[in-house]
């Protein structure tokens, strides 16, 4: 049988932790910063290249119908939007004022942040799928001038099947999984918050 003071004595005999030194941390800081910058830069460059190519085709290639140009315009907007989100996310990662809040306020911030991200991700996924489907449908009008009727039918059936698969299976599964994860996190955060309520 031990009392609390004996546990305290025991606590003070534990060996020093040599796992992490301040040099390792400084090295990690530099590497992490470089890693994020490189990742962001590669994203920006690759999206910028795709935007340039799409814009070039958009301007130079003479299309039969305006619907193809509208289709390309939708894809361009999606790409620019993705680029903006990447830059915004990168900035958000480096923002950390909330870290200095009391645990109760910090947990509330985490709760709101997780809910916001969930809403944002699921909503974005829906919009992204819809935009791509609309763009594809518009492009098919142009296709009807080049390909035979049978090829066009096969293409339309495949596109509809892809759209249905995205909307009724992939999107629903993704949103359900994300919602379950969020529910679990929110439950855990509520439990934590109640522990820190004075």
């Amino acid at each position, binding site marked *: 049988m031990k009392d609390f003071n004996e546990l305290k004595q025991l*606590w003070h005999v534990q060996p020093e932790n040599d796992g992490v030194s301040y040099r390792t941390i400084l090295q990690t800081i530099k590497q992490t910063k470089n890693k994020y910058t490189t990742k962001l830069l590669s994203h920006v460059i690759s999206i910028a290249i795709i935007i340039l190519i799409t814009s070039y085709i958009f301007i130079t290639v003479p299309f039969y119908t305006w619907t193809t140009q509208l289709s390309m315009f939708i894809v361009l907007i999606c790409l620019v939007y993705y680029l903006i989100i990447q830059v915004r996310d990168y900035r958000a990662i480096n923002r950390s004022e909330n870290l200095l809040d009391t*645990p109760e306020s910090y947990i509330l911030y985490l709760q709101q942040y997780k809910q916001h991200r969930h809403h944002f991700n699921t909503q974005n996924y829906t919009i992204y799928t819809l935009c791509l489907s609309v763009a594809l449908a518009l492009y098919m009008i142009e296709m009807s001038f080049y390909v035979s009727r049978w090829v066009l039918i096969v293409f339309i059936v495949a596109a509809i099947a892809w759209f249905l698969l995205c909307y009724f299976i992939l999107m629903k599964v993704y949103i359900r999984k994300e919602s379950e994860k969020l529910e679990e996190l929110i439950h855990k955060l509520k439990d934590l918050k109640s*522990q820190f309520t004075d």
Partner: protein
Amino acid sequence: MAHKEALFKEIFEKNNKRVYHLCYGYTGDSDAADDLMQETFIKVWQNLDKFRNQSQISTWIYRIAVNTCLSHLRIEKRKATDEINDNIIETKAEETSNKQEQVDQLYKCIAQLEENERIIITMVLDEIPYQEIAEISGISEGNLRVKIHRIKNKLTEIYNRHERF
């Protein structure tokens, strides 16, 4: 930059032991504790310019450490880790000294407490003044004293129950 690095080194050397204890007490896993400690000090480095002496630097670092631990929300992994930890501790116990075995046992018992209890008790064991613990955890000092009394009894009871087997 050199001045910031020197200051960081000083802060790290003064506080790393206690921050590690807090992270280990919270996660019950030494590898996860290493990761959380590293994450805490990275945030300390990133926010060093924001520290304006409104409180002690140790209080400020602890606040960052506590919030970093709280954001460690890998629920499913956590459950799996707890089970693995039990096995690791049992296997390792045969090889390590009796004292080390008791320390491992103590961490295992802390891991059975509620999250805020783990945070508070590791600070009590590290002899942080009650006023500072109250400031870090955002709980009033009066309420904290009651909590600490209850947690001490709970931990002692859990430890003695394990020791009997």
